[in-house]
């Protein structure tokens, strides 16, 4: 494989991005779209020859759909004249990212991303956008302001983006062959076994609570050749019996890793959220100056209405 080809593909994609940033419509934009997407697909084809490359055509096709959706909406987002549409295109980027997470078997994070990002964070952005838009529209009567219509320095921005992408391409193409080998099916089974040994409650729910579990669970759990997990337990009448156990899912793995490996970080994350909440309240608070008479009037009104009620 010629090592210069990926960099040419990167340069083509960066040129396309620069054209997209420079022009909002017309043939330049069409050309930029073709160049950008073409360069990116070329890059993906080049990377398919790397070790650990294409294993399975079906999932690669699904990947390509999500990847092109993510990149196209991201470009739409940064070239959009109306910020509300930019936020909406960012929702599309998030949905494409969630598709990627599902392909990477991170199911819990895929759902969390939709709920937290698309549901909560983006709504906050939309609120602030519309709040600001309302005030701007009142003075300019529906016209998009000048700073939305023209990008600042599109050539330099695309050059910096292309440079970063070139560094990423260099790291991927030179570094991937040096990586330690990928996890095997046995590694995955071992991870399932290690987690199940820590979850006696989960096992009891699967095999029925009347069977008493052995105290050293880890030595009674065994992985069989066909990839299932087997538990040998002694029943109440003294006979040993074996059970086939369901392996723990993605959520169980992530949850266990979160509380068992990173308990302090979890606490710090909570403190950061609390501090951010205080900070946002303090920053966005508007100080209202009340004159002395207004305050007196307000208290007098309040007193009078109290008397009316009684």
């Amino acid at each position, binding site marked *: 494989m010629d090592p210069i080809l990926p960099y040419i593909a990167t340069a083509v994609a960066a040129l396309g991005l620069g054209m997209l940033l420079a022009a909002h419509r017309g043939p330049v934009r069409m050309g930029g779209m073709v160049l950008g997407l073409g360069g990116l697909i070329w890059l993906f084809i080049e990377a398919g020859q790397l070790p650990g490359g294409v294993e399975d055509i079906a999932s*690669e096709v699904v990947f390509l759909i999500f990847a092109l959706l*993510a*990149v196209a909406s*991201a470009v739409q987002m940064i070239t959009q004249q109306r910020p509300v549409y930019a936020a909406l295109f960012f929702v599309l980027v998030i949905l494409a990212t969630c598709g990627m997470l599902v392909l990477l078997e991170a199911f819990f994070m895929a759902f969390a991303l939709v709920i937290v990002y698309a549901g909560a964070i983006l709504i906050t952005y939309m609120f602030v956008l519309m709040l600001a838009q309302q005030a701007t529209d009142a003075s300019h009567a529906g016209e998009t302001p000048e700073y939305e219509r023209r990008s*600042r320095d599109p050539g330099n921005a695309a050059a910096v983006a292309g440079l970063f992408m070139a560094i990423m391409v260099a790291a991927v193409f030179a570094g991937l062959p040096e990586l330690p080998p990928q996890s095997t099916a046995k590694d995955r089974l071992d991870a399932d076994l290690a987690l199940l040994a820590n979850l006696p409650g989960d096992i009891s729910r699967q095999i029925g609570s009347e069977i008493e579990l052995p105290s050293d669970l880890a030595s009674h759990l065994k992985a069989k050749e066909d990839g299932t997990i087997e538990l040998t337990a002694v029943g109440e009448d003294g006979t040993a019996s074996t059970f086939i156990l369901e392996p723990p899912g993605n959520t169980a793995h*992530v949850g266990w890793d979160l509380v068992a490996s990173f308990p302090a970080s979890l606490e710090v994350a909570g403190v950061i959220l609390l501090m*951010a909440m205080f900070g946002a309240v303090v920053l*966005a608070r508007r100080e209202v100056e009340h004159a002395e008479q207004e305050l007196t009037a307000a208290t007098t009104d309040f007193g009078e209405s109290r008397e009316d009620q009684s």
Partner: protein
Amino acid sequence: MTVGMLAMAGGVSLAHALLLAGALFSIGIAGFLSRRNLIVMFLCTELMFQAVIIVMAAFGHWYWDFSGQVFIIFILTIAAAEAALALALVVLLHRRRATLDASAWRELRE
């Protein structure tokens, strides 16, 4: 095709996931440098967060290590905290100058 079948299909190659993340991050950089609307500039930083999320998930899947996904949870936390603070700052700036144009604050440079 159901979600389970997709996951059974063998997953995505690491190189492709990393390159997609790099492309998203680069577009985020380009947007941050070229846009002049304060809120869209913050949206571009969120785009860069998305790229990092894909990298975390890809390496976590490659080594079957769930720490990658745990770090996505922390990234989400930081992104939420950042969005709250940044938007509060934007509201504050918008009240002072009644515009979202970043170059209205040009004199802060020196």
